[in-house]
């Protein structure tokens, strides 16, 4: 009887200790996560690595992006927004063919931010380049300045907008790196779709965290930036470009 009473008391003590410690442990977890009110931090820089060798004919990244962000076309490809597009390449000399997704490259030295007269084009501390829809006047100078054709002008009325993704006729928009998902600790929709259904060609992560998968790969494997000659230090890098 004595033994079992001791056991019960011991169990009770353990439970009490766990009950007392658990909120504390949870607090540590919460303290490490970024609350929605907290500003983006310079301690991180979000980036993408795209391995063209693994990128196949599918366009799952494009579909997932437009679905996630409520980007709907009107059957007019010249004016419909394309936040991400598949570009097909063929080497003029060798004939070697490749395909790869191109979106906002989230440059450190973004030309779109330099030219924006009102400051609507902006860069978060964590490297994500965005358009403030409240102060964009629709001058399209950023579209002229972007070397990658990533900026899109909203040419007509928007319908079916997502609560997390403001869009507006007459303003400019582009890939947000799914900032609303990133702030929830998730990865961009294109990356998830590529990992799930595509060729697993896209890796997302914190370029400043030496232990992140993207940083480790960038350190050990060869990669390049688009228009590297412009020295824009984009957050999106490519592997396997011929």
């Amino acid at each position, binding site marked *: 009887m004595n033994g079992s009473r001791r056991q019960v008391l011991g169990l009770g003590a353990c439970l009490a200790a766990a009950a007392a410690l658990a909120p504390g442990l949870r607090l540590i977890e919460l303290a490490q996560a970024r609350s929605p009110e907290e500003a983006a931090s310079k301690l991180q820089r979000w980036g993408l690595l795209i391995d063209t060798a693994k990128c196949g004919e599918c366009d799952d990244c494009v579909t997932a992006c437009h679905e996630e962000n409520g980007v709907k076309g*009107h059957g*007019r*490809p*010249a*004016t419909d*927004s*394309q936040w991400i*597009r*598949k*570009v*097909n*390449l*063929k*080497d*003029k*000399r060798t004939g070697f063919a490749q395909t790869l997704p*191109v979106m906002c490259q989230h440059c450190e030295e973004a*030309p779109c*931010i*330099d*030219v*924006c*007269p*009102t*400051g*609507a*084009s902006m860069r978060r501390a964590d490297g994500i380049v965005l358009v403030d829809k*409240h*102060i*964009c*006047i*629709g*001058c*399209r*100078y950023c*579209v*002229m*300045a*972007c*070397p*990658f*054709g990533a900026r*899109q*002008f*909203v*040419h*007509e*009325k928007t319908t079916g907008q997502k609560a997390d993704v403001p869009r507006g*006729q*007459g*303003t*400019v928009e582009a890939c947000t790196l799914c900032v609303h998902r990133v702030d929830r600790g998730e990865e961009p929709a294109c990356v998830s779709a590529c990992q799930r259904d595509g060729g697993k060609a896209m890796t997302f992560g914190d370029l400043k965290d030496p232990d992140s998968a993207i940083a480790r790969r960038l350190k050990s494997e060869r990669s390049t930036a*688009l*228009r590297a000659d*412009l020295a824009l230090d984009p957050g999106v890098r490519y592997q396997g*470009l*011929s």
Partner: protein
Amino acid sequence: MTPPVHYREIEGRSSGFWSLVAILGLFIALALGAAWRMEHEGHWITGMSNRVVWGVPHVFAVFLIVAASGALNVASVASVFGRSLYKPLARLSGLLAIALLAGGLAVLVLDLGRPDRMVVAMTHYNFKSIFAWNIFLYTGFLAIVAAYLWTMFERRMNAHTAPVGMAAFIWRLVLTTGTGSIFGFLVARDAYNSAILAPMFIIMSLDFGLAIFLLVLLAAARGTGRAIGGEILGRLGGLLAVFAAAVLYFAAIQQLTNAYIARQHEVVRFFLVDGGIYTALFWFGQVAIGGVAPLVLLLAPAWRKSRRALALASACVVAGGLAQMYVLIIGGQAYPQVVFPDHEVSSSAFDGVVASYAPSLPEVLLGLGGVALALMLTVVALRLLPFLPQAIADPGRDPAHA
């Protein structure tokens, strides 16, 4: 000693005057209607796209803004360089500078995706943006030229005309540098991305602005029965020939520079050889009509004293200038951005191909509305205030008292 100049408002009672006002008013109304539709329907109803985001409205707007600073030439020649021969025309010169700038800015603003957010543009600035600089350069220009006109109109202020004129002259050079740099600093587009665009825009402004000034002067003189001395027109014609030749020179240097750089060969080829409408507009519009024709009309001995030849040469400069703007602004965007050198490129977003663009009616109406607004402001100002001299005499002769 120069005889005193008598200025007088235009009478503004004739049916011709009211017809002109009605026609200009109609074009302004059509432009407002076009802008309203573009804002409510969205820009998809225009010829613009995500590849060509600046269309015909920008062609007119930039042309008018560039011409505005050039229209100040005559006033500058009078007060900065002290040529009293041109002094009687200085008021008209200042007026046109303001009117053309207002017309161009109106087009620019009404073509914005959100023209209702002008207050935002006036309250939020990114000082690294050349656009933001230009907002100050444009408003500053309007203020300085207004002050300049005041020193000319108000006798007590006459003594200040020279320094204010000098300030306006320097400001206009900076302004056109800013306008040219909007394109010149676009590092990612092979058709722009050149320091030559800033001085080229200055010389273009001198050319286009003087041409418009001459057209308005000749029309006003004819419409109001004012006499103009042949010598002053002859000298202004000579100046126009110099400017037209200088614009050709800059265009040649721009293309030659690119032709020397291997990676720019395709751009030169596009504009000079196989760019379709842009090649045609370059050779026939910009070079032949805008450059060669005015030179022939202005310099051929048979036509040197002909006012009709002068008017035609000025009209050619205006038409050629619009063609040049079209080639530069729209051709420069239609030419594909090279993200992947040495590759054939294709995508759903028209990568790797020359973008198609056809001007739409709303765009053309909006652009013409800017011209109409500039002319309307001029006509109304001429009617309300004594901008025009009763007669413009040649030195030693005063046709008013002849």
